[in-house]
């Protein structure tokens, strides 16, 4: 089974929830905001993930079944809200950011 390419942009409010559900697949740690300034309003991850996550990221019911099977205690409503608020696409990360009008929050180190 081949991996699939996806880019996910998740609002800040849902990021901890999404990180938990997508552990090992997307870390969702790269911050975005409309101005490029902190604080982050969204987080982005992009890359190849196992094929089974295609339907999980596009269908709340499938996602809920997968999360429940994995031992998470979450409601369908929670997952539906998280997926509806998120942007999951096959776009490159730059194209997805541009489409949503978001910029990378660059922190000087």
């Amino acid at each position: 089974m081949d991996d699939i390419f996806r880019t996910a942009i998740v609002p800040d409010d849902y990021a901890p929830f999404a990180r938990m559900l997508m552990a090992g697949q997307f870390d969702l740690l790269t911050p975005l905001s409309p101005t490029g300034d902190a604080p982050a309003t969204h987080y982005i991850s992009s890359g190849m993930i196992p094929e089974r996550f295609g339907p999980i990221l596009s269908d709340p019911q499938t996602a809920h079944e997968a999360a429940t099977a994995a031992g998470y205690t979450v409601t369908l409503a929670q997952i539906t809200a998280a997926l509806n608020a998120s942007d999951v696409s096959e776009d490159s990360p730059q194209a997805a950011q541009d489409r949503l009008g978001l910029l990378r929050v660059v922190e000087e180190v």
Partner: protein
Amino acid sequence: MGVISSRIRRHRRTRLAAEMACTWNPRRLFPLGQEQGGVYYPDDPNALLRRRNLLLRSEETNVSPWTFVNASGAATQTVNAYTFGASGVDRVTQQSAFPVSSGETLTAAVKLSGSGNIRLFMFDGNGSTTFSLAIALTGTPTWYQVQGAMTVSGTSNGIGIYNNGAGTAGASFTVAATMLARGAQTISDTTYQPVTTWNTEYMAAVGHLVTQFTDAAGTTAVQKVTDGVGLTLDRRFGLYRGPQLLTSGAIGLTGTATAATYSTTTGAGTVTRVDASNQSWVQFSGLTAGRSYQITVSGVSGGTLQVLDGSATGTVIASTTSATPCLVTTTGTTITLTASAAATVAFTVTQFQWLPGNHRIQAVSGSRKTLSARYNLLTSTAQLAWSAAFIGTGIAPVVTNNAGLSPRGTMTAQRVQLNRGAGNATTDASLVQHSIVGGTVGAKYQGGIHLKSNTGLPQTVMIYTNTGGDVSSSLVTVGNEWVFYKNPLHTATATTVGAMTIGSRGGTWASNNPYGGDTSLDLLVWGGDLRFGSDAASSIPQYQDVRSVSDFDTDGFPQFDVFDGTDDNDACATGGGNTSGLMLVSTITVVGGAGTNRVIWSDIGSNTGYRVRINTSNQLEVSAGNGSAFTTIATVATLPVGETHVISAWDDGVNLNVQIDNGTIASTPRPGVSAGTAGFTVGKENGASSGYFFGRIYDVVHRFSGYNGSEHTRLKQWAARLAGVNI
């Protein structure tokens, strides 16, 4: 006599120096166990073992993706043994796992024995028979094959066996092996390539040479471009493995369960699990914490075998039901094998060896770099999607697909007919154009395409690469042979880049204008290419055929890892924390992120350690921390998007230095360096979610202490050669 001996010695020295120059490898920098650092670069998976059988599964025809159709109602299938009814409708088929091109010749082959008559067939596009061979079966397993040119591109082509036709008697037969291969070939036992999971064959054949794996546990080899890379092995010791440690295994038990068994001679064993509190195991002890051990098990049966770092309650590194390797970097001194669920699992440990080095991993799938060798920025390059432009007296261009033989012998050349009419003003034109979006302003590009006259007569054609009104054009005379024509380098002034325009326009051609060409053109066109200007100057083929973003020519194109600038990175828990010096050389191509910090290598902590990055001014920069502050030095020169360069950063014990290719060295006195973290990160800031590198990395070599200028020079030359660039 003395003079002759002297000459011989001199010649020998010269020859030896030449041999060393061409065979030099960075592992020469690392006498075993004496130097710390790392050497990382990808191989072409095809160079290790080329996939020739296009089927996903070649012997177990009862398993998906094989499809068995019992349309007669009288057919049976028992594993690989079949009976077919007397009609012509029973069949067993499998599609190609890899796309093929229209016009490409394939060979379908089966090894069969049995009685009766059947037919081997190869289907093309719609599943119907295109090429077939009637077979009168015998009791001796025999290879049978058919060849033919496909007319449909993609993966809807394949192989099948069906009854010999309505009215013929039924047949009974056994399938021993199958193969679908590119080209007209003769398949035999010696040329047949078996495929069960492919990873099984790949690892069995070249596993000892594999340095990149798709998963962090090292169970699945990177086998093709576009695969993600979860584990990258350190090659500084030439993939040397330590001695077999089968004798370090011993059985153990907690609670009540059938006792484990294990042979320290053969590696054969069994483990049983009732539940987590009641299970037996095999544990390898006396290992060295922080070392990486490569473990391979085979013959797993009865359930799933787990490999755990530590005890039976440790971290699960790999789970397997078949023969598979994995790499465990131990946090303690033990590695344990258990059953994953309630069962008794039998297995044989065939390998348990220390694999020295600082191996880089990325546990998160979406954050893995990907292997690539793609230089042509266009997609589906054999037949470009053209847009037409005709103005003034110009007539609408006509493009006909599959109108002629391509340079590769496939029937995929496009016929392009253009006519600008009676007018000869610059407002009279007939053109076809192909553009891409997503270019980088300021980056240099070169467009090129294969052209041939379709009339047999020479024709003068105007071609150009452009962004908006900025044009890099050529006026070429196209003859009766295929020639690849390249435009001059073009610096993009917008993000939409016109990769190639072909046609005729009134006016007189001059450098960098879009005028000229014969009034009427009738051309064969094939294979467009748009690449970064730096790639156009590299020692790589001038055209790369791209069938899709995941299927493109790789032979002759240096492999590299792509970091997406968003989250891709990897790290090693060891290999950082040195204070006495550094020599880092890497070949990179910046693809994006201009104006931001982009880290190549870092083991920094809080004002400690070393970091090599491209800074917000797009300069190469090295920093070293003394515990209170960083000392930093950057090049004056920059690293623009699209250019491939060898970068160097080093601490020679006196100064911190950075250099791009063989350019000016920027230096500053080194601080008293405080140790950074024990490990290091490549592709982002160490210990932070920032500084993601966006581009290609062909190689990374870093060594602590003992800086040597001649070694550095040799290392740079090697790094440049690896990427096909000259410095």
